């Protein structure tokens, strides 16, 4: 701080606290709604403080699902699906991009630049832009309603490859030379030297990609028709479209809380990796 002006400092805190309250308000209301019974949530105005039905509501959505002729799938199934998808996407992206970056940086081979550009252009087209034909390809391959269909089309990532490429380029050449002099094979060098050095980059990328995988919506919406493959984000959105005919706001909001919880916890507990990943991937 350049000069000490208590009033300005006070105003700064005030603005920040207001900002935190505004940003937190939707989630607070969601939490409150998930702790009341159905009747309370239908009387306007809805309560602003939590009620006594927390345990009951969460137990019902987790074990029984929404019930009453709507979605019979319990939420724990969709949570599992989301977890499989998020972990699959994050691990898959890290794995295939780290080895392709290794190949592009540490080898000279024909078509190298061609491969590099082929990966580079994928950066430009998000799934949303080419949904209809991509759906066609996945359908032709018989990957609808499967985990491989949920995961594999999303794991080609130019950002991750670039990140590892940047990092590998900053690794001193002396290390490579020493490894070669000692007679280490390329894979041995990768496994024993490069991989341990990349730990922080991998962690940062993993956090970002886990959130990306968990929060996918359009893709699972297109390629899953069986409820047993629904992700939790899909389940929440589908139920919110039906909430006017079966107004169990309390249950819907309990589902929404459960859908938010895992990625938010990851961000809170791995904040350093998260911020680093965000800045590195510029995603």
């Amino acid at each position, binding site marked *: 701080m350049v000069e000490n002006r208590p009033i300005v400092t006070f105003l700064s805190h005030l603005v920040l606290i207001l900002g935190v309250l505004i940003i937190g308000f939707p989630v607070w209301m969601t939490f409150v709604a998930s702790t009341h019974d159905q009747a309370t949530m239908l009387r306007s105005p809805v309560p602003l403080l939590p009620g006594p039905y927390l345990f009951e509501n969460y137990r019902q959505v987790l074990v029984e699902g929404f019930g009453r002729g709507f979605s019979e799938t319990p939420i724990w199934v969709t949570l599992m699906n989301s977890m499989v998808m998020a972990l699959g996407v994050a691990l898959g992206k890290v794995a295939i991009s780290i080895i392709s970056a290794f190949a592009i940086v540490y080898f000279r081979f024909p078509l190298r630049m061609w491969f590099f550009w082929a990966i580079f252009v994928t950066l430009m087209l998000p799934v949303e832009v080419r949904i209809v034909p991509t759906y066609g390809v996945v359908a032709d391959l018989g990957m609808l309603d499967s985990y491989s269909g949920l995961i594999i089309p999303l794991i080609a990532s130019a950002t991750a490859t670039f990140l590892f490429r940047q990092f590998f380029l900053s690794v001193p050449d002396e290390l490579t030379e020493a490894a070669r002099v000692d007679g280490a094979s390329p894979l041995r060098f990768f496994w024993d030297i490069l991989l341990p050095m990349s730990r922080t980059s991998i962690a940062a990328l993993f956090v970002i990609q886990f959130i990306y995988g968990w*929060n996918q919506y359009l893709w699972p919406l297109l390629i899953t028709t069986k409820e047993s493959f629904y992700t939790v*984000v899909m389940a929440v959105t589908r139920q919110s479209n039906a909430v006017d005919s079966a107004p169990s706001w309390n249950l819907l909001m309990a589902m929404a809380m459960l859908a938010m919880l895992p990625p938010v916890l990851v961000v809170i507990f791995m904040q350093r990796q998260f911020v680093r990943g*965000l800045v590195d991937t510029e995603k």
Partner: protein
Amino acid sequence: MEKRVTFNERFLPYLLVAPQIIITLVFFFWPSGQAIWQSVLLEDAFGGNSKFVWFDNFSHLLADPAYFASVRLTFVFSALVAAIGLAFSLLLAVMADRVIRGATAYKALLVWPYAVAPAVAGVLWGFLFNPSVGIVAWLLGGIGIEFNYVISGNQALLLVVMAAVWNHVSYNFLFFLAGLQSIPRSLIEAAAIDGAGPGRRFWDIVFPLLSPTGFFLLVINILYAFFGTFGVIDALTKGGPGQATNILVYKVYNDGFRGQDLGGSSAQSVILMLIVIALTFVQFRFIERRVHY
């Protein structure tokens, strides 16, 4: 930049790039090629009949007032998302940069909305503004404003913008804060010694030095508003009421999957691809200038 020291292997590098290249070819090049091919075909809605129609799909699209309405809407929408999102997060970042005590706590309290899925963000905001049970809609009703996003197109757009901004505010905040913290303290102190007050210092020193970050975030926010908000719109309004929130990316989905108009949808995809490529190009030109190896 290239490595001086490399390994000599004939087949290993191909093996290593193979997984990524195969996935890229199958799920990226192949469908993108198909999108371009389908955009010049007219497909019979009931059978496999299709015939080559040159650029008819494009000329239909460009002659369609509904498409232009969607283009205009997308620009209005992304301008609102970018302007409100950047202004709000810049304000918070400047304040967080000022305070000494509690800065990390504020940061922790502001970063988590990024982790909420856009579709779930849509559900949360839909609950707050629900015409029958929403607390904010009720409060607005109390002061005489009838808020019903199910009926009013403008209110629906406003709500979608709010949910989209909320979802992306932490991203903007983190980048602005990092930008602010990289501005040398000595510059600000020198200005203070010369008698410049906090407002003057912000506009004459901090703001210009922050403009690269601001420009980068502007491009990212436009990309986000164009493509990242699909979930928000699908959860809240499904493009409605009428066409009030039917932005381009939602229209591709609507026309292709609901309307089964493959040719028209593919033509729209191709136009969207061109827009993304242009925006990504701008972004990269900029990043290249900023990053020094």
